[in-house]
């Protein structure tokens, strides 16, 4: 192993040095000479007809360059949706136009109406107050079930209704599932809400547009998880800019959690306006703007029914979900409640018959799209809640019920279209039992009771689909892009290496973990290797980072490119050593002729590649640079088992998390410290969803929790010291590293165990509370104890 860490080493994150010393370079740190500033005047009404916009006073004000309205964008494309879902009748989803600036109507609080470009932010904001808007308020639709009723006000007048699609999966199973549930020995039914969340990355969104008249090239600096995707969507669909004339740069990004995947109107605006005005244009979101313009997450209403036979085997599962799309279709919104949700409904269990129905609904709310886990947390939550409820109803041990129904043979083809390659759910449950010290729970419960507190234990399993995704498969499912990734390995003459990747790091530690892989393959120090990401002009066409895909997909491309490098370098070494190619072995940075002491160092070979004085020029080209694209053969399927112990204060309803244990199977692991950190972060977000976070709307479409005064983010003292373990490893069978992905697991796996634990505490104390919707705030828990759920 290289001395500063190859595969498996817990190398400290090299990028943290610049982040923690204030030397990160974020989009807001980018200032282009001569830049102007834009402020967006946003609707404070959820649904209104725009009768008039008078910008004449604003345009006369000092420092104002120009005020844009929706009329300026009539010839510009619609903000595109990247995924088309086909409904259960074979019809394409309803897909409304999404203008850069609202035109004709405003459809949610935060919908941008005017863009004021000025010499300073303050001048732009002053001018915004001088704009005279004539808005005619219309009835808003906020509640999804109301929105799909006949006669409900329509968010988009050109659509037939507010129903985006009515999706059935697997439609051919529908009748069989209905029959199985009708004839079941026992059916457990649960209706629940998966609460709407706001991602709240520490860095709000920022975009800077620049246009260079000398070469007619656009540059967009933006807070994105996937600059190539933004270039593709904005260039091809919105602004009609050819890709070779559009560069998208996403430098250091201060957290994404999904909400920075999507192409946003503000990006298109600054790119458009920079050319129109011949001035760079910069926008930096305020936190308030983030609440009303970043795509939100979750927001499902679900009814789930689990059928069991007399021996407690799961025989069928049926779900009906209303999924909020918000006012417009964000980039990947239609895929989240369908292909990232329905396909996971088997979970860890061999339920033979499954039918999933999803109704996606337009409402006068901020668009909803992927947020850490994206569809998989929603699937896991309902499934692991209904299994727990079934165990309680049947009076059986929830662990035993799960174990009895575990899938144990792999590969396993689920009834919901996916095939799990590997896994060992009993192994992670065994590990959980150990690290959570489940056998000590009763003693801890007694100790809590002695202090007047109610203690509860909740568990759940999870499975997720990561390494998104096989392009041919997602193409059939409606994706309008491929989901491969790419890497270029550029070896310099002195042997150091730059790896240009299509993935993007915004907290995941790629700059540390990716070099560990290349260092391990070649046998040189990881410090000799740098990762370049986040710039379409410097990196090969990759699809970015989300869905825990970076290492499984982009890392695999990097491995393939490195293999090409090693093969070529062996040929050069063979020439230098006057041996045949196949006799050359590479270890610890030395090329050796097998069975001899003849060797040449990595640096001598790389130098020869660029100074080819003694070089097989007739057989191979000089230089040492290779690119590979990798398209995965399947999803990867991380899995695990989580346990949460809570105390409930019966006097106040306050829940505190006393212990939390997570046993995950991520396949092979490159850097266990980074993996632990990813799990910790995911757990904090999952606990946040379960106990604290909620984006609440009133019936008029006003956001009630639009600032940190009312939107409760988890803080350090809201979460416990975690016990995490990832020693259970069933390597992925179809990617070269055997990795599965770890970025979302914590957020997917934790909410059900928190809720199960609170319900256990309440029920054990004699309160009959079958379910509570998240977040489990003190007041909600107190109400459940005192007024019934």
């Amino acid at each position, binding site marked *: 192993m290289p001395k500063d860490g190859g595969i498996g080493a817990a190398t400290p994150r090299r990028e943290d040095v610049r982040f923690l010393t204030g030397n990160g370079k974020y989009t807001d740190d980018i200032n282009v000479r001569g830049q102007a500033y834009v402020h967006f005047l946003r609707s404070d009404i959820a649904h209104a007809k725009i009768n008039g916009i008078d910008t004449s006073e604003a345009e006369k004000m000092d420092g104002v360059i120009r005020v844009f309205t929706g009329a300026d964008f009539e010839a510009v494309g619609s903000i595109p949706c990247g995924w088309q879902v086909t409904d259960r009748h074979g019809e394409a989803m309803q897909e409304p136009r999404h203008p850069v600036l609202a035109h004709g109507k405003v459809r949610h609080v935060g919908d941008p109406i005017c863009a004021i470009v000025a010499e300073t932010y303050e001048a732009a904001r002053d001018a915004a107050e001088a704009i005279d808007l004539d808005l005619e308020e219309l009835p808003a639709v906020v509640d999804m079930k109301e929105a799909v009723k006949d006669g409900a006000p329509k968010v988009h007048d050109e659509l037939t209704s507010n129903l985006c699609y009515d999706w059935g999966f697997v439609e051919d199973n529908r009748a069989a599932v209905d029959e199985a549930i009708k004839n079941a020995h026992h059916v457990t039914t649960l209706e629940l809400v998966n609460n709407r969340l706001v991602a709240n990355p520490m860095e709000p969104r920022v975009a800077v547009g620049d246009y260079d008249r000398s070469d007619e090239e656009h540059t967009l600096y933006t807070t994105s998880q996937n600059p190539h995707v933004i270039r593709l969507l904005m260039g091809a669909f919105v602004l009609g800019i050819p890709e070779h004339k559009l560069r998208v740069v996403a430098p250091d990004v201060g957290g994404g959690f999904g909400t920075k995947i999507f192409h946003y109107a503000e990006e298109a605006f600054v790119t458009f306006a920079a050319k129109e005005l011949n001035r760079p244009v910069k926008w930096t979101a305020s936190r308030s703007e983030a609440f009303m313009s970043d795509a939100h997450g979750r927001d499902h209403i679900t009814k789930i029914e689990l059928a069991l036979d007399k021996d407690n085997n799961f025989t069928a599962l049926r779900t009906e979900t209303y999924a909020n799309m918000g006012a417009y279709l964000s980039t990947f919104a239609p895929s989240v409640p369908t292909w990232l949700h329905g396909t996971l409904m088997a979970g860890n269990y061999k339920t033979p018959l499954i039918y999933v129905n999803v109704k996606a609904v337009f409402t006068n709310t901020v668009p909803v799209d992927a947020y850490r886990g994206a569809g998989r947390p929603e699937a896991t939550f309902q499934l692991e809640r209904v299994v727990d409820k079934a165990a309680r109803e049947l009076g059986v041990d929830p662990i035993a019920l799960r174990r009895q129904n575990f899938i144990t043979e792999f590969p396993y083809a689920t009834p919901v279209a996916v095939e799990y390659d590997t896994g060992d759910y009993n192994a992670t449950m065994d590990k959980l039992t150990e690290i959570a010290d489940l056998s000590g729970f009763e003693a801890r419960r007694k100790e809590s009771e002695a202090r007047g507190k109610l203690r509860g234990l909740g568990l759940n399993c999870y499975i997720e689909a990561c390494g998104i995704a096989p392009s041919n498969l997602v193409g059939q499912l409606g994706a309008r892009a491929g989901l491969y990734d790419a890497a270029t390995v550029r070896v310099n003459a002195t042997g150091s290496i730059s790896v240009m990747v299509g993935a993007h790091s915004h907290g995941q530690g790629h700059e540390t973990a990716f070099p560990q892989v290349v260092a391990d393959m070649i046998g040189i120090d990881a410090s000799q290797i740098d990762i370049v990401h986040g710039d379409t002009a410097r990196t090969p066409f990759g699809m970015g980072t989300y869905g825990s895909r970076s290492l499984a997909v982009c890392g695999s491309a990097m491995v393939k490119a490195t293999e090409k490098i090693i093969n070529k370098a062996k040929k050069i070494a063979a020439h230098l050593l006057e041996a045949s190619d196949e006799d050359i072995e590479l270890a610890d940075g030395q090329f050796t002729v097998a069975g001899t002491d003849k060797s040449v160092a990595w640096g001598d070979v790389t130098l020869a590649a660029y100074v080819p004085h003694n070089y097989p020029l007739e057989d191979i080209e000089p230089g040492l640079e290779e690119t590979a694209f990798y398209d995965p053969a399947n999803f990867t399927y991380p899995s695990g088992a989580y346990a949460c112990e809570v105390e409930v204060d019966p006097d106040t309803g306050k829940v505190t998390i006393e212990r939390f244990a997570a046993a995950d199977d991520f396949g092979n692991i490159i850097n266990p410290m980074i993996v632990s950190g990813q799990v910790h972060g995911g757990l904090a977000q999952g606990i946040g969803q379960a106990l*604290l976070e909620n984006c609440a709307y009133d019936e008029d479409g006003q956001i009630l929790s639009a600032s940190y005064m009312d939107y409760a983010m988890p803080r350090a003292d809201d979460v416990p010291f975690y016990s995490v373990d990832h020693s259970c490893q069933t390597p992925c069978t179809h990617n070269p590293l055997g990795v599965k992905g770890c970025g979302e697991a914590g957020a997917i796996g934790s909410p059900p165990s928190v809720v199960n634990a609170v319900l256990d505490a309440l029920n054990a104390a004699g309160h009959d509370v079958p379910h509570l919707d998240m977040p489990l705030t*003190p007041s909600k828990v107190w109400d459940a104890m005192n007024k019934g759920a």
Partner: protein
Amino acid sequence: MYAFDIERPTTIADAAKALSGEAQALGGGQTLIPTLKARLADPGTLVSLSGISEMQGVCMSDAGEVCIGGGTTHATVAAEATAYPALAETASHIGDPAVRNRGTIGGSLANNDPSACYPAAALASGATIITNAREIAADDYFQGMFTTALDEGEIITEVRFPVPEKANYQKFVQPASRFALVGVYVAKYADGVRVAVTGASEEGVFRWTEAEAALTSNFSAEALDGLSVSADGMIGDLHGSADYRAHLVKVMTGRAVSAAA
């Protein structure tokens, strides 16, 4: 924020003069600055009180009161009001470190946020609010949510707290803002017990007089048995119903009594 002028007087007299026109006093700015940033206020002129040395610091009066300058930060009170431990403890849990290092007692009491901690401490302690013009008893000072007895331009220069035999403040935090969802300050003096409640009522901080009477005759949590607080007029919002807040008033009062030292 809108453009504004700022004045930085160094004496109370100069500050009062600066505030006699159209101007807004600026204490630590922990409420006012976010308000300005959101363009919810356009004061024209701000008069910063933080440069006035005679409004700084903690001392004891001859009558044994803890006297705190109106411009004294929460962090200073937490560190220096050792003669009144419950008050120092209360100050040490206001907001977060940034708030405690900037926010001032005068600013907090002048703002009278219905969920702030200091109004409960001042009311339960029967404190005296000293201004550049007069002395106001706490019982006369708090007049409802964000409303006080202060006149336009009047400056809180000092707050005097009689030191109780025992006292304690129990804050049940609102999960997002961590202001008091319900906060109860109990102070036991030789002549009786005072109980002040913040966070709960639509009328702002108030005294729970039934509890005061019960606790004056028997200073123990059991003395509250049988008492209850009406939910009428209690705040109901995302974070808790009026019923819940009314319930918490009693729970927090009991805990404050038990913890009082």
